[in-house]
């Protein structure tokens, strides 16, 4: 249990998707103009990361990893399919996004109208594939750990985009040098927020 909390906190603050790895920057920069839309996208990311990372964890451990196929028959013990991981992970993500979209549309129209347009965008959000690849690289031991890692990364991304959106709403009233307006200042602010987040480095529960 302690271990899970540790992974959760670490993936939110220390290994933050945006500030430490720059994942999902494209939509982060494009959508963060107002807090309201950022909330929608942020929630969608948390949601999709929380689903795809555990699924890809199962695929990695029961299909792709070296010796993962032994549950079918011991003679597959030295089959190593991990070179297929990119293509399988992205297929899982693209189809999960589609599936999640349909399920939400059916059961919760309000949530759907909030997330609606953002869900398809998420298939190509690097933070989603990044979450799965980091899960593979760091070799988490249990399904629970992988799930918590996925959720934590999503929450970290959520926090980052809300923060930058709030700052961008305010910065509209300040006198930014013309060439720096818009994109330039957003980059520099993100850098400064990243420096602040570095203060969390080394936290261990």
């Amino acid at each position, binding site marked *: 249990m302690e271990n899970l909390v540790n992974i959760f906190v670490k993936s939110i603050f220390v290994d933050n998707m945006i*500030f*430490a*790895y*720059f*994942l*999902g*920057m*494209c939509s982060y*920069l*494009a959508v963060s*103009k107002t807090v309201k839309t950022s909330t929608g996208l942020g929630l969608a990311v948390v949601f999709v990361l929380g689903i795809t990372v555990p699924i890809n964890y199962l695929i990695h451990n029961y299909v792709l990893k070296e010796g993962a196929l032994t549950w079918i028959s011991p003679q597959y013990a030295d089959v190593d399919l991990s*070179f*297929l*991981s*990119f*293509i399988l992970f*992205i*297929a899982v993500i*693209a*189809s999960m996004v589609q599936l999640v979209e349909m399920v939400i549309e059916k059961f919760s129209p309000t949530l759907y109208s909030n997330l609606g347009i953002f869900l*398809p965008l998420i*298939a*190509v*959000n*690097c*933070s*989603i*594939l*990044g979450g799965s*690849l*980091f899960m593979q*690289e760091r070799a988490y031991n249990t399904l629970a750990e992988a799930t918590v890692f996925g959720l934590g990364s999503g929450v970290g991304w959520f926090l980052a985009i809300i923060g930058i959106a709030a700052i961008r709403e305010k910065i*509209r009233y300040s006198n930014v*040098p*013309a*060439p*720096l*307006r*818009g*994109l*330039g*200042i*957003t*980059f*520099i602010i*993100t*850098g*400064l*927020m*990243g*420096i602040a987040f*570095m203060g969390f480095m080394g936290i261990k529960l």
Partner: protein
Amino acid sequence: MSQDREPLFSSKNMKLLREPLDDSNPITVQVLGICSALAITVKLEPSVVMALSVVFVMGVSNVVVSLLRTKIPPRIRIIVQLTVIASLVILVDEFLAAFAYEVSKQLSVFVGLIITNCIIMGRLEAFALSNKPWPSFLDGIGNAAGYGLILVIVGFVRELFGSGTIWGYQVVPEPAYSAGYVDNGLFILPPMALVTVGIIIWVQRYRNRKLIEEQQS
């Protein structure tokens, strides 16, 4: 193909190649492909390897998608494009692991993340799906080069100030260190990559005034 009517390197085609280097640079103007651009630019060498990989993937995938453009049903085009890109990226990944193992270790997951690099999907959607193979190829190469250019600049700056080396060779002379010069460790950390790109954008827009954004953005 278009060669019947216009020469292979007509001015229109050259424009496809040249424009992304400055006026419509994928990173600083179109805001595509930032994700992988920043994380691997601590040193010059991985930046160059990354830039070359993206040139390869973009050039080939633009041609493939452009050849298939009449065959792909529009509803499933995203998955088809992702499959094309992912297969190429697997090639790059295996190639790097075989011939440049050290660099491939440094790049770690970021080779895989070329798949979701928005610049590739973005150009496929915006250009290759509605154009012939040869212009698509030039567009892909041009955009990847514009992306690579920024990558190399950021990698150069960060390695020079962060470790005092370029391509692993010591550039800052020894006497400077004994006189009290210290490498700026902040440049190695992620936030400085963002600030560096911010400054590049600043300089570019200062020189190229038409790129300046309106106040209400």
